């Protein structure tokens, strides 16, 4: 009996040693991979790359939680390892006081602390004064954007000046959607018949990805938008241009395009300022200058625009725009005309 025991023990510890080495190298590999991924991939959606005060508060809270819970995780697993490796005893070596303190009291304290931090962050997210009002209404898989004071209507692209607090008035036509620009702030639900508010500010010029973050059936996954932050003078120039209706086309090719737009049914659903009044689909007054097509589905280029007009169903299945069977010549004219609306 006394001969056997030490032999068994050395054998056991050797095995665990090897296993620990394997675990350790696995862990190092995992961390290295994560770091590499974090460095090499562009992150247009990452909340850890904040570009505004609201997102900054949220990122800070995220890191506070990460570090606190990382410590808790490591301590817990260390205790577990200790428990598994130490030899069996009749009574508990630490007593029930330890279990109460580490198992109930400390977690409760940590959770209360985190609640306080969270409430503080939520309080910091609220602004009271705004420099610009923007109304965003979500539809079946696209976003309508209105600047009520300036009389501008756009879709799937929001232009804001850098360094200004923007108040978004959010609502939905139909089902519940949710509005989120990860690099600028938190999410806010968009409800039918009841508007919600969100205050966002962008600190650097750039194009920020936004998305619907409440499952709204169908092609929810392809319902996004871009938020473009300009320098203030660029923004006022954009606003001036956008407020003017597009000049009537002069070139015969563009005139033909406008005629195709009116004749082939596009005008039934789409608005072009002073040309067509449809309201079922996105406003196309500024379509040529937009960055994406189909609410963030495709990059906007002439080739993609032609493909989208001809058969949008293949690119964003189930969206409300029907396939068109235009004569090729009409299609080219329509693409040229829409491309000219910048």
């Amino acid at each position: 009996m006394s001969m056997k025991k030490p032999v068994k023990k050395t054998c056991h510890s050797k095995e665990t040693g090897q296993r620990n080495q394997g675990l350790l190298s696995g862990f190092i590999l995992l961390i290295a991979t994560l770091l590499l991924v974090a460095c090499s991939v562009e992150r247009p959606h990452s909340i850890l790359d904040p570009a505004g005060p609201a997102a900054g508060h949220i990122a800070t809270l995220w890191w506070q939680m990460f570090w606190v819970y990382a410590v808790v995780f490591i301590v817990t697993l260390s205790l577990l390892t200790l428990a598994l490796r130490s030899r069996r005893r009749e009574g508990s070596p630490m007593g029930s006081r330890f279990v109460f303190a580490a198992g109930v009291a400390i977690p409760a304290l940590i959770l209360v602390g985190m609640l306080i931090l969270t409430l503080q962050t939520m309080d910091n997210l609220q602004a009271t004064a705004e420099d610009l009002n923007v109304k965003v209404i979500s539809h079946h898989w696209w976003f309508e954007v209105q600047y009520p004071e300036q009389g501008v209507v756009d879709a799937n692209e929001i232009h804001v000046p850098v360094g200004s607090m923007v108040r978004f008035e959010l609502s939905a036509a139909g089902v519940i959607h949710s509005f989120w620009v990860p690099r600028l702030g938190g999410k806010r639900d968009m409800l039918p018949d009841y508007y919600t508010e969100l205050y966002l500010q962008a600190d650097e010029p750039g194009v920020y990805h936004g998305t619907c973050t409440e499952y709204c059936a169908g092609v929810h996954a392809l319902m996004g938008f871009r938020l473009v932050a300009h320098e203030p003078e660029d923004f006022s120039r954009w606003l001036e241009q956008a407020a003017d209706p597009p000049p009537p086309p002069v070139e015969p090719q563009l005139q033909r395009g406008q005629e195709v737009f009116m004749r082939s049914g596009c005008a039934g659903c789409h608005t072009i300022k002073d040309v067509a009044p449809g309201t079922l689909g996105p406003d196309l007054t500024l379509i040529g200058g937009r960055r994406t097509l189909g609410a963030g589905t495709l990059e906007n280029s002439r080739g993609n625009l032609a493909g989208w007009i001809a058969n949008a169903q293949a690119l964003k299945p189930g969206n409300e725009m029907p396939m068109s069977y235009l004569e090729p010549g009409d299609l080219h004219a329509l693409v040229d005309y829409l491309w000219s609306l910048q």
Partner: protein
Amino acid sequence: MYRTFFLLLIAILVIGGMTYYTLRFQWPRDRGPKMVIADGDLQRGRLMVLEFGCSGCHIVASVRQARGRVGPNLENIREQIYLAGILPNQPDNMVQWLMNPREISPQTAMPDLHVSEQDARDIGAFLYMGSRYRMSQAADNATH
């Protein structure tokens, strides 16, 4: 003993023969002609497919976003005899077609997208690779 040996031999012959027949005559393999645009940059061509919006109308091998259903599927364009139904399928014709489709075929629905000659060579080279693009990239990575 001989009997077992004999049966085993027959089994090996039958299974081996079937395997040979399948691999030799029935296994899918590359039958298309080799279409090569030597100075085309495949990786750049792939990016151009997205940038010009070829992907809005065509299915293109090795481009996940290219699921357009407006023009023909281009996955096996290398095996086709004609381009756009009017040009013999040759690398030079491919480059010309990508650059001015409406000049070559006034009735076509494919728009002129002001593609430069180099862009067209890159796109053409990439389209001709078809699904072999992945393999070529893997081989490329292995040699580097």
